[in-house]
């Protein structure tokens, strides 16, 4: 945390060694439980398919197999398409949201922007009231007609009033007014000031916006559910959702549909778990490097100026 205090008299205030041990044990148990779900799907994904069907899910499989992954990344597989769509929309959406949020936040942080009250309210009101899902759905589909385009995967999440206010606070507290005024006196235009003075100093704040936005779009399932009907445009989350849903439905109604579907035709269990693993994989791999930005993003407001 940014307000780390020097460790004065930590000894007197510290919890007793036995309590410390007890709490550590508790934390370790909780940490294992927290990580268990990841372990379960990873292990299931590398289990041999026949073993999985015969013995069910095990904590440690009798036979390992990477067949699911090699099948997954075979040419023309739905996962490759979904990956492509997810990466394109995440990159485009993140870039767009950083630009839009920065451009909206900077003027609001300036005292000499005459319409700042209006635009603050214009953004803030949308956090309080909305037209509701039905009318949103109709507007997206009937007026904007962005359904079944790649835009539908990221445009609706490309801007956020919440992050505008976070970034505005960040600029107010981290970019000294004197600096901006100095730039103005030296003859810099508003745009030059923004790009040359404010932007470099706002990078940590922008990094937070970028990361949250990237995670948000990567994990977005709702946009695809609402606006995408074309398999070619499914993103990762929606692909794995529809796979799981179809299978559960077929299994549940297997007795009613004797002969119509054979369970052997369904994507295998290991295959499905491998799909879940490759969906979260990039997040888990990137997490250790970006974790401090996430934490900062959530405490950024605690230093209100």
């Amino acid at each position, binding site marked *: 945390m940014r307000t780390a205090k020097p460790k004065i008299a930590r000894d007197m205030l510290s919890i007793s060694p036995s309590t410390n041990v007890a709490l550590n044990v508790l934390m370790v148990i909780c940490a294992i439980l927290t990580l268990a779900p990841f372990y379960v799907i990873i292990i299931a994904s590398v289990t041999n398919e026949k073993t999985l069907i015969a013995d069910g899910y095990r904590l440690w499989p009798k036979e390992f197999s990477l067949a699911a992954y090699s099948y997954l990344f075979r040419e023309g597989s739905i996962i490759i398409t979904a990956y492509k769509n997810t990466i394109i929309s995440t990159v485009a959406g993140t870039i767009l949201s950083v630009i839009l949020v920065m451009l909206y936040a900077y003027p609001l942080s300036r005292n000499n922007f005459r319409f700042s009250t209006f635009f603050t309210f214009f953004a803030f009101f949308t956090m309080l009231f909305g037209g509701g899902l*039905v009318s949103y759905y109709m507007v997206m589909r*009937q007026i904007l007609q962005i359904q079944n385009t790649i835009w539908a995967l990221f445009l609706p999440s490309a801007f956020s009033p919440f992050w505008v206010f976070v970034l505005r606070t960040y600029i107010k507290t981290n970019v000294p007014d004197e600096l901006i005024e100095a730039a103005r006196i030296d003859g810099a235009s508003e745009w030059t000031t923004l790009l040359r003075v404010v932007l470099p100093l706002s990078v940590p704040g922008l990094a937070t916006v970028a990361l949250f936005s990237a995670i948000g779009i990567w*994990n977005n399932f709702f946009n695809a559910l609402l606006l995408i009907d074309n398999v070619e445009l499914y993103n990762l989350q929606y692909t794995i*959702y529809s796979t799981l*849903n179809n299978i559960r439905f077929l299994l*549940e109604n297997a007795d009613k549909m004797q002969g119509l579907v054979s369970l052997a035709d369904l994507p295998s269990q290991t295959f499905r778990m491998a799909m879940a693993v490759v969906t979260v994989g990039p997040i888990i791999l990137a997490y250790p490097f970006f974790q401090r930005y996430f934490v900062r993003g959530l405490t950024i*407001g605690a230093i209100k100026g």
Partner: protein
Amino acid sequence: MSETMTVSTQKGTSPRRRWTLDAIYCNLSYLTMVLPGAIWLFIFAYLPMPGIILAFKNYRLQRPPEDFWTQNKFIYSLIKSEWVGWDNFKYLILPVNLNNTLEFVRNTLLYNLLFMVAGLVCAIALAVIIYELTNRFWAKLYHSIFFLPFFISWVVVAYVVYALANQSGIINTALASLNMPMLEIYKAKILWPFIFLIANIWKYTGNGSILYLAIITGIDRQLYEAAAIDGASKWQQFFNITLPQLVPTIVLLQILAVGRIFVSDFDMFYTLPANSAFIREVTTTIDVYVFNMLRSTSPLGYPAAVALVQSVIGFVLILVANYIVRKVRPDLALF
């Protein structure tokens, strides 16, 4: 976190805020900066707002005549559909539907209350424990681990639930080896409140504790030293020093949560039960109901009516919540 949302109206910085040509010209570069964001807001947030009148209409898709000012079918149909007053709302409380309506309203409210209480207790407990641990390296590692689920989508969580609890899942394999009957979670209503609760705690506790941890870290150590010298136990220190410092934030966050009590976490309630019909009674919340209605063949007016009630109640609740915060802690008020 909520403090960041504080919208301070900067009074007195500019005496005239009217849209005169002069004012626009002076602020032209600022205005061009906010323009892209403002356009986004207009399209994705403001454009759907007039659509709330769907709730009072019997919406029928019609083809606009050649000479009509817009050839957009939706706009034309929205304007031309007949007004039916409160009929769409009455449909929801017809004797046939009343039970159903009460069910999804009840689910939304009770689940949100449950998550509020459980989330609060877990987040504060975690923050205090993390802070008290003597080894900072381990404390940080634990916290990183607990924060991780926040970044995992609900769809993947649905996979985990499935992997744990399907017919050959870990739980049923274990039960079978103990000769116990199989647990069919997609048919057992009683289990779902627990599943949602556990999933919610798993996903949000690490995130929820961050703000509390930041506040606890900022508390003056001398307070604790004085208390320790006076012989106060750790529990007494917690209740008399830590908790009072957390109270403003707790109150604020809970009031805001009350403001959002009619809004449910759609992704969770929609993906985890995987559309199983057997457990619909305990897994359908307002948002899920609206979505299902929207995707069904029923008239658009019904889900629109539910969505309108949800929007309006949410709006009023946030205003009330903010009013209360304003009375208690004006500096923490949203607006």
